[in-house]
């Protein structure tokens, strides 16, 4: 095969590595199952020979009945094309998997998450600690035999919350009358809390590696979790030498609200409102990705009108998210609240449209499997048209005029927090962070979903990979979104908005699926495993901002404390999605 062919065709792994790999032939599954000991070799070949250079998602699935834990890897080529999936299976009682961090540094946080929630140990991981819960937490919550303190039944709908007509509170079932549970025979006074010792130890290891021969004093500074710059309850622990950052560790989990565990108890449709609360600035995008993943499993296609409305909503969401992102980036640079006010003013007008179509400003819960919850009224269409054709382009230009050439913005942002294209790909960055580094990868173009192949738009990208380029990419993306919106509103057809009858309980065949969209902050993916029951067996969110945070430390090293705040602003995190 020629080089070009190996770089573009989907490789038949089972013919290339017949002894190491077998196709995943379970009904409804795709991809390949790799022998655990050969994982690194296969992953390396896929990356170097076959061009799968970006490791998108790493997650685990607990197959309790088979006594197996499975680690699922999704990789794609940054030159475009569909996603490629391979897995390893390990026994539940001794789940050890070689870490992919040496090949793909972007796996770092995701492997920590799989370790934390499923107890899979990744050998060779540089810093395998708990990430969403805390050191000392009892158990691995996403294992199927682990029960939360308010456990009632394995799956919803529960038999009765109203025994004999009386409402029963969750507290009544718990001996502590609270959402807590402790191991048998536990004595609270004998416990020595971890108090971040493990965290600080890993930081000081870095320091000793830097200066083994002389004793230097570095200072640990905690930024957060309550801190005006950090876009919510996010914490950074920085190791400083003077004002220079030697190393930095992101600490998260302060908003870990167990999205995935709750989702695995919920029915498929009950999860839709929960997806709103992931990236709560861009709820419609989350709906979109989840609906796509379930529709793939069900094999339904929404009608034309629904597809157009979906695109309209997703692009409006992108504009809201970028307005907020740019506004708050300026907040972090010291222009307190005024630029955000301009952004929030436009957000209010777009949120009005969301309220008109869905009944809610933020938590829209608008998409359904095979369509939408409600139709878009002619008034809403008219209002959107006015906004898109007249006001938004003017306002984006206004932002541009005030900020782009501003001297302070340029001096604070240019050449700061640089991420090279190679690093961005290795660190699994997606969305504006990846594109600002000069990799024009956009899921809407690379693997068009819904009806994005019909629209004429450009993929915005930067060349320098610094904060300023990330800002410019977001500005340009807003313009492109307006362009898509104009076309979608022009072509919006009449017709039904739902395929089939709306149903509370959808029938989802057994299998797995991965639905992904280009969310405002990056590739948002939902990995679902269904076993034919009304509830998903596994529900995993590939959260773009969580994975983009892997690149925070490499970008910040060598910079100043004030730059870190701006770099974080330029990644544009939303804690609902980071911690889930």
């Amino acid at each position, binding site marked *: 095969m020629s080089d070009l062919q190996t770089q573009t065709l989907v490789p038949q792994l089972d013919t290339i590595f017949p002894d190491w790999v077998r196709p995943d032939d379970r009904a409804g599954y795709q991809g390949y199952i790799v022998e655990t000991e050969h994982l690194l070799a296969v992953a390396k070949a896929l990356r170097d020979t076959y061009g799968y250079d970006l490791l998108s998602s790493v997650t685990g699935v607990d197959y309790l009945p088979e006594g197996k834990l499975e680690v699922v890897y999704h990789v794609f080529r940054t030159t475009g094309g569909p996603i490629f999936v391979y897995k390893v299976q390990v026994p539940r009682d001794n789940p050890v998997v070689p870490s992919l961090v040496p090949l793909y540094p972007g796996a770092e946080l995701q492997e920590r998450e799989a370790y934390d929630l499923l107890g899979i140990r990744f050998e060779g991981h540089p810093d395998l600690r708990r990430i*969403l*819960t*805390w050191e*000392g*937490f*009892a158990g691995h*919550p996403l294992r199927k035999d682990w029960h*939360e*303190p*308010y456990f009632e039944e394995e799956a919803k709908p529960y038999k009765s919350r109203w025994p004999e007509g009386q409402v029963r509170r*969750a*507290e009544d079932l718990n*001996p*502590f009358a*609270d*959402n*807590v*549970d*402790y*191991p*048998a*025979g*536990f*004595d*609270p*006074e004998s*416990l020595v*809390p*971890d108090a971040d010792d493990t965290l600080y130890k890993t930081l000081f290891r870095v320091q000793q590696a830097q200066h083994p021969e002389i004793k230097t004093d570095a200072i640990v500074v905690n930024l957060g979790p*309550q*801190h*005006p710059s950090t876009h*919510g*309850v996010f914490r950074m622990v920085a190791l400083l030498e003077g004002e220079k950052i030697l190393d930095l560790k992101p600490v998260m*989990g*302060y*908003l*870990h*609200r*167990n*999205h995935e*565990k*709750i989702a695995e*108890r919920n029915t498929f449709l009950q999860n839709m*409102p*929960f997806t709103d*609360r992931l990236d*709560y*600035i861009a709820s419609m995008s989350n709906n979109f990705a989840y609906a796509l993943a379930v529709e793939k499993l069900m094999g339904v296609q929404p009608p034309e009108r629904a597809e157009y409305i979906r695109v309209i909503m997703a692009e409006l969401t992108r504009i809201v998210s970028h307005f907020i992102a740019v506004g708050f980036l300026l907040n972090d640079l010291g222009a307190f*609240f005024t630029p*955000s*006010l301009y952004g*929030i*003013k436009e*957000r*209010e007008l777009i949120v009005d449209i969301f309220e008109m179509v869905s009944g809610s*400003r*933020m938590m829209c819960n608008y998409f359904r499997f095979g369509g939408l919850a409600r139709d878009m009224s002619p008034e809403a269409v008219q209002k959107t048209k006015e906004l898109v054709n007249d006001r938004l382009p003017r306002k984006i230009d206004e932002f541009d005029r005030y900020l782009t050439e501003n001297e302070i913005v340029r001096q604070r942002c240019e050449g700061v927090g640089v991420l090279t294209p190679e690093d961005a790909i290795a660190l699994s960055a997606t969305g504006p962070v990846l594109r600002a580094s000069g990799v024009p990868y956009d899921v809407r173009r690379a693997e068009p979903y819904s009806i994005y192949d019909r629209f004429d738009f450009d993929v915005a990208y930067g060349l320098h990979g610094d904060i300023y380029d990330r800002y410019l990419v977001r500005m340009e993306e807003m313009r492109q979104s307006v362009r898509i919106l104009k076309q979608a509103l022009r072509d919006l057809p009449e017709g039904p908005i739902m395929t089939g009858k709306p149903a509370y309980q959808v029938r989802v065949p057994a299998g797995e699926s991965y639905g992904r969209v280009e969310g405002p902050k990056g590739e948002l993916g939902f990995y679902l495993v269904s076993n034919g029951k009304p509830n998903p067996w596994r529900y995993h969110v590939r959260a773009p901002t969580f994975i983009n945070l892997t690149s925070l430390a490499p970008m910040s090293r060598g910079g100043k404390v004030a730059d870190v705040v701006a770099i974080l602003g330029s990644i544009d995190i939303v*804690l*609902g999605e980071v911690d889930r």
Partner: protein
Amino acid sequence: MSEQERRTEPYEIPEEMKSQVAVTTLDKIYNWGRSNSVWPMMFGLACCAIEMIATAASRYDFSRFGMEVMRPSPRQADVMIVSGTVTKKMIPTIVRLYNQMPEPKYVIAMGACACGGGPFKEGYTVVSGVDRFIPVDVYIVGCPPTPQSLLNGLITLQKKMEQESIATSRWYSKAPSQPIPIPVLGPDLMDPRKFDLIRQQSAAKKAAQTADGEVENE
């Protein structure tokens, strides 16, 4: 001042001074000043924080009620708006921040999660309402509450402040108010006030397990 109050006014004010002098009680003027310059702490937890920011922005603009001065430091804040899901990992920080706020201090639980756990109540790291640890003055329902309902909550807080009296307020009493013990993160969240209960229940659990084990062995 209503017509009724004017007629029952106990003080004689000369006609020429009527437009320049107002007579009121100390409580009234004290509360009037306090309730119209409430400084919230700049502290967002989750989704509700976005609506809180929207309330601070131009369309809803809570500076109309004297609340625009968001303070990042608890030392300078009067009211803590708990805007979002309270998790077990975050509650030690929230209690610490609350302890650091000077009296008089108020707490608003904004949204379903802060009031009682909300949609995420059954989650294993979610605290079932911030009022399990710190006293709450105003509860605002909604997921998230609209800016209008946040404004309503803030005005309700103002009304509450206006009813307080210097004579009975806890921050002028002789005994200083005690800080709330900070919860500890162990195998699960532990409230220091409930250590006895925890020990008791875990011992009972162990006893039940050994009893079960013996039954199985037989």
